[in-house]
């Protein structure tokens, strides 16, 4: 909370022109402006299934998601490119019901799960400069996802695994703790789609996820 207040205060300070009035101790631009540098982010995510995936398989939000990414923030360009690996997990328990499996009638409590381990490349387009304390960006990503579809009937299991193409579109912002500093917070909202079809999942897996992460940058 305190940090949020500090960030808001910094933002306001920036807008009111406070920074320009301060005595100019350094005339040299920050190394983050001068060099292509690296930025690593660790995120925790909440995800909400949407579309037909939510309608036909799992509609319960999940908070067991995380990812790590490393990116190269290019010099003299608003772009950064990088790679992100993660883990997402959806689960829902359906009360006892009857299912028709061929000629068989099955009565069971279903536990539906879907785990994904996405491996993606992404590009960020930053709307403000690299040393701005707030750095909003838009993101496009694409890659593959290692999908594990495990459906439990009571304690019995059916499982299907596949490597499926995945893509994503996001908007987010980085917030530096300190101007010209190395650490900050990253907040992102992203749409994730995986083209995977199996049994209940007929039109792919889609979800909207919101994440909060911390990043560290260095050159």
């Amino acid at each position, binding site marked *: 909370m305190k940090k949020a207040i500090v960030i808001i205060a910094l933002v306001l300070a920036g807008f009111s022109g406070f920074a320009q009035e301060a005595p100019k101790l350094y005339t040299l631009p920050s190394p983050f402006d001068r060099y292509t540098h690296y930025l*690593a982010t660790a995120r925790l995510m909440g995800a909400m299934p949407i579309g037909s995936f939510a309608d036909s398989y799992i509609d319960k939000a999940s908070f067991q998601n995380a990812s790590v990414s490393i990116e190269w923030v290019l010099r003299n360009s608003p772009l950064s490119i990088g790679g992100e690996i993660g883990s997402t997990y959806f*689960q829902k328990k359906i009360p006892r019901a009857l299912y028709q499996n061929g000629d068989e*009638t099955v*009565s069971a409590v279903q536990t539906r*799960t879907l785990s994904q381990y996405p491996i993606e490349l992404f590009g960020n387009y930053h709307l403000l400069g690299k040393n701005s304390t707030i750095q909003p960006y838009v993101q496009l990503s694409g890659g593959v996802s290692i999908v594990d579809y495990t459906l439990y009937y009571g304690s019995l299991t059916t499982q299907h695994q596949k490597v499926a193409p995945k893509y994503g579109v996001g908007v987010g912002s980085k917030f530096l703790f300190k101007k010209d500093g190395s650490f900050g917070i990253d907040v992102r909202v992203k749409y994730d789609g995986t083209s995977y079809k199996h049994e209940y999942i007929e039109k792919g897996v889609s979800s909207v996820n919101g994440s909060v992460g911390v990043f560290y940058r260095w050159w």
Partner: protein
Amino acid sequence: MLKKASTFALLAITLGLASCSKDPIGDLSTEESLVYVTNHDKSANYTQYKTFSIVDSVLIVENDRSGTSLDDIDRSLLQRIITNMQSLGYTYVSPKSKPDVGINASWITNTYLNAVSQPISSYYGGYWGGGGGYGYGYPSYYSYYETSESYWLISMVDFKHPNTTDKTYNVVWDAQIRGGGIGDSQYIDKMVDSIFGQSGYLKIN
């Protein structure tokens, strides 16, 4: 500087992997873990059957061995089947008085032996040329594990229309009960009621 960053990344990865170990069915109660599977002969007309009988003990089948058993749990299973059949409208008769259908009850256990090999195994047999005539030896890191699975199998056999050409009786209905609590006598009534409950077509009264 770089070291600090890699420690940070490593920590993040560890956190990520720690969240991967899940036990999705850990919160299932014993009752919830039970699965009832029923199947029946679609062409069978159950109203033509009036009387039934039942085996006097449970057949125990374990891989290719078999025997019979009649302990408390078996007795309560058989008794509950009789109760359910009677409430569906069938009359219980002795096996000697030519019942229209017979009920079999079995406890089946399948045990599998599985072999796990470490990453280097015979899969690479052809890759190294194979001209030398060498195979791979399997030292102690080659390991085995055993899994076994048990379930109840209850079936209804049509004695009224024996298949005379190949001397068999048709199974007109069967039910499997699987899951965690199947050997627990407190769930027997629930299990038997469930398999009959989901087979409404058996009702003749």
